[in-house]
């Protein structure tokens, strides 16, 4: 039986996604200090910016983008994730970013279709 697959399965490219995330966070937050009233809007904007840039790439992927913003207070924070997927085609990228008053952690999971 012939194989009718016309394209190779694309894999998740971590460097590109990492760059997209960094750019989104810099654009939305940059050097601003933590303000409780604005956090909602920041998380939404960061996540939306990432998703828009990711979908512009046009790859056959489903994406899950997660953003955590925490005020710098001396408290500890730990995050872990585990996934059940196809290691050859799917991948994740997590970027930790900070400025003087807050920590921002953004994770992107890409699942191939």
């Amino acid at each position, binding site marked *: 039986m012939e194989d009718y697959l016309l394209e190779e399965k694309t894999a998740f490219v971590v460097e590109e996604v990492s760059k997209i995330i960094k750019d989104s966070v810099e654009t939305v937050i940059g050097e601003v200090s*933590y303000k*409780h009233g604005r*956090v*909602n809007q*920041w*998380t*939404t904007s960061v*996540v*939306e910016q990432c*998703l828009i840039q*990711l*979908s512009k790439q046009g790859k056959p992927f*489903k*994406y*899950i*983008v*997660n*953003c*955590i*913003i*925490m*005020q*710098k*207070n*001396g*408290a*500890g*924070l*730990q*995050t*872990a*994730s*585990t*996934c*059940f*997927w*196809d*290691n050859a085609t*799917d991948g*994740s990228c997590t970027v930790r970013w900070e400025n003087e008053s807050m920590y921002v952690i953004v*994770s992107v*999971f890409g*699942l191939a*279709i």
Partner: protein
Amino acid sequence: MVEGSDTYFLRPNHQLKFKPAIVKGYIREIVRERLSGVQYDPENVPELTLSLAESVKDKVKSSGFDRYKLVVQVLIGEQRGQGVKMSSRCLWDADTDNYAEDVFMNDSLFCVVAVFGSYYY
């Protein structure tokens, strides 16, 4: 992983759909059992988060969502009066894919668990 066996089903049968309410129940049970009365300890926390994620993933896997790829995210933080905000957005097929999440708090830590399920066509 599911061995790419072609089922030609573009949509899961209703019984096999990712059910957020059920998964949320599993998450709640596991987290309450493992974290009640636990204090935030920077030494233990890294392996605690990882093992919690693995337990939740195994539980969800064994409950019959066969054609679903899963992503489980666990966040544990110390309670010190700081502000935290976590938000997610997904680009997927809203018909077949879904997520479930739960938050647990005691007086020394808080824990957020999110499980995302994406149908493998």
